């Protein structure tokens, strides 16, 4: 298993097994850990993509989360509280084609962005947003500011 990075996201589904099968086919993820009860319900699972882990779980709430409840976007009318960014070293257009063939809803086609990345965005079957990104050129802070009209800082100082 890859070395665990400091921050690992966990994504929640109504049907985690169906989601994991889809993530394997559409995005090329691999299942590395799957904890199931006697009825086959998923307690927790982990997948990997190009060496990076992501957690997959069924919806849950309860004492550990205080008043929090982890839900699928499908149960929230398409709302999501976080989305996932996936950095690709190469092959982003082919990755998008594979996802589309597996039924991903491509909401933004692969396109070069002002910040130097080529990106596409897709929704999985339960409505989670996935943003795939591949660096295609180096852009300086000044160039980004000029292209976007935004001010760039590298700390909260002065905000």
């Amino acid at each position, binding site marked *: 298993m890859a070395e665990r990075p400091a*921050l690992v996201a966990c994504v929640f589904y109504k049907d985690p097994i169906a989601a994991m099968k889809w993530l394997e086919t559409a995005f090329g993820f691999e299942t590395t850990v799957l904890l199931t009860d006697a009825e086959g319900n998923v307690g927790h699972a982990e997948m990997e993509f190009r060496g990076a882990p992501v957690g997959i779980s069924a919806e849950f709430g309860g004492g550990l989360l205080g008043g929090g409840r982890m839900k699928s976007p499908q149960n929230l009318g398409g709302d999501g509280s976080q989305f996932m960014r996936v950095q690709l070293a190469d092959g982003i257009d082919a990755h998008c084609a594979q996802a589309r063939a597996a039924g991903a809803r491509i909401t933004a086609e692969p396109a070069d962005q002002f910040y130097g990345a080529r990106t596409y965005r897709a929704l999985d079957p339960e409505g989670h947003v996935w943003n795939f990104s591949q660096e295609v050129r180096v852009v300086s802070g000044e160039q980004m500011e000029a292209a*976007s009209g935004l*001010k760039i800082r590298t700390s909260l100082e002065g905000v």
Partner: protein
Amino acid sequence: MTDAAGQVAYSEMSFLGGSVSINPEFAAPDLIGAARMVSPAAIEGRGTQFVSVHMPDGLDAHCDRARAAGARITQAPNDEFYGERTYRAMDPEGHVWNFAQPAAAASAADMEAATGLKLSTSLKEAGHG
């Protein structure tokens, strides 16, 4: 990245070499179709993902610091069956953060015995080939 009115368009933070993006709520049909990115504070405390933060040491002190800053600690530091010491906290808008550091190593057999769950390392092994 801020606009002329000082509103955040996009930002990134890092912790122990990992990075996380921080953004205002948004909807943009040309980018994310019918999806809408919202704060848990806008949807009665519900969230669709959370982040686990893995630190090599200092978990209890980290929890103290978070509590002192007003974090709602929903689960105090505790050794878990899967070989980690964890705590969980909610930030002011209700995002769940799970913090973990390594504790006593747990084998797959230990984990299965402690939970009664079956541990597989692929969908096929779990009977979902």
